[in-house]
């Protein structure tokens, strides 16, 4: 995903207090931050709250100087979202909200994929299930690396971990997707053997 310079210029304008330009910046980042947030939590409402809170803070206290706008926004968003998550966990402890909602989010996306692609859906769904059961941090690192084209150094700043940890997360993340893949391939074999056996025994009865 390439980011155009016009956003950097818009940013400077927004600092001067132009609401419409601020809106452009907001819309520009929303989908990407949202997708990033979804790798961390399926709760769309929390992600939306985090994005809004982040931009309110940015509006009220615009940073004087930002070396990389992208980096700044992703880092701040992540902090904000984890803060929201922490607060809601406290909230959840006292007011029990049924967990099903979280489940629903995952199931829905699996359903959408089914409609999209018939040829490869089974293998891909297995991978997607594995992806969803990964620890959030591994999913996060993979998303930033592959879908935001961030460097390991950049991810280490955003996630506030050492660079070797980033590499570790990504590597283990992919490996987990693989293990599942080969399991699935393997599971086919006993089924095939059973079918062959049945076929053979069927043939034998004929004689």
């Amino acid at each position: 995903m390439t980011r155009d310079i016009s956003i950097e210029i818009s940013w400077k304008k927004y600092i001067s207090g132009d609401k419409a330009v601020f809106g452009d910046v907001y819309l520009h980042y929303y989908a990407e931050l949202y997708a990033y947030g979804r790798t961390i939590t399926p709760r769309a409402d929390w992600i939306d709250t985090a994005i809004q809170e982040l931009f309110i803070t940015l509006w009220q206290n615009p940073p004087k100087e930002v070396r990389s706008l992208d980096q700044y926004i992703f880092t701040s968003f992540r902090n904000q979202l984890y803060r929201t998550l922490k607060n809601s966990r406290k909230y959840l402890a006292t007011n029990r909200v049924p967990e099903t909602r979280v489940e629903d989010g995952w199931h829905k996306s699996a359903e959408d994929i089914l409609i999209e692609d018939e040829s490869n859906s089974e293998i891909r769904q297995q991978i997607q299930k594995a992806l969803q059961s990964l620890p959030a941090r591994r999913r996060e690192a993979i998303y930033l690396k592959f879908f935001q084209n961030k460097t390991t150094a950049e991810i280490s700043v955003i996630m506030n971990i050492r660079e070797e940890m980033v590499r570790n997360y990504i590597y283990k993340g992919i490996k987990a997707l693989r293990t599942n893949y080969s399991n699935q391939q393997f599971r086919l074999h006993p089924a095939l053997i059973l079918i062959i056996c049945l076929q053979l025994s069927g043939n034998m009865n004929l004689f």
Partner: protein
Amino acid sequence: MNAEKYIQYRVEDWVQDPLFRNYILDKDTTHGHFWRGLSNESDEIARKMKEASDILQAMSEVHSDYHEEGRRKSAESWKALEQRLPSRKKTSHRRMITLVSAAASIAIAVLVLWVLWPSSQAAVYLTEANETQEVLLPDGSLVYLNENSSLTIHEEWQNGIRDVTLDGEGYFMVRSQADTAGHKKKFTVKTSGLDIEVLGTQFNVQSRDAETRVSLDEGAVKLVHGGAEKTESYMVPGQVASYDQKSNKVAIIEKALVRADELWKPKTIEFDHITLREAIEKMETVFKVEFTSESKAVLGLKINKLSVPSDNPEVFIKTVNILFENKIIIEMDPENGTYAIRELNKSMDQ
């Protein structure tokens, strides 16, 4: 490129390789030849590449769903946020204005709520200044909303009645649809005082305040206006109808007499993270062409991003042929004028 390195690759390495990732996810075919050559080297390498490709595509599907979800929510979220943003420079005078405008916006919100309440099921699409939006209707018809416009899809859609309300400007590409008896179902665009009824055609509607303009590009259109006593007018392609609500009259003029920049039409058709099947449906709506395919599987191929001119279907065909170079080919059948999609021998998918 160094083949040695790639022969040693494990699946994990393939997934992490930026060039291979571009090839799979962004359909960057710069090194397509090289990758295909490698996959022909041995079954072992082909299997690893296939596995890596599946992992990448599985992840990409999830993330493009998320991205799309975010894109759908963004405008509404901005509307909510805009209300909450305090004005930066706070003089007492400005604060007063803020208060008044806050009160006004609450009043407007209440009014809007009251007006919209009976049709709470209706879906509304809004565009702001310098913003256009493509709206895909449940029947596959497309509407391109120009700036500062709104399109309401009525609750009755669920009962098979194709009614929408337009305020502002929109370019309509209506798919013809038949009911169970085989009769063509009408599609109605309601504007203030004037209803535009069509069966399946392409036209532009501009409705601001008391004036509505309809410009017809193809097919036929029936205009219905008037209060208790309905008056009907018909249009043919190349004509522009102008309706004035005050006088309740329709005037029909030839398009050649209208300034070209007054008739708006989207210049490009965008494809964003959709399957070949969806892309083809869109092409059929926009260009009134027909596609046939022997294989269902190829319709699941993914298109990440594509933009083609709205006046020529050939560009789409050419681009897709390049995009899926070794997988499919689309050719025009000279006999009946339909486009046939043929599957080619698969080298990657063994």
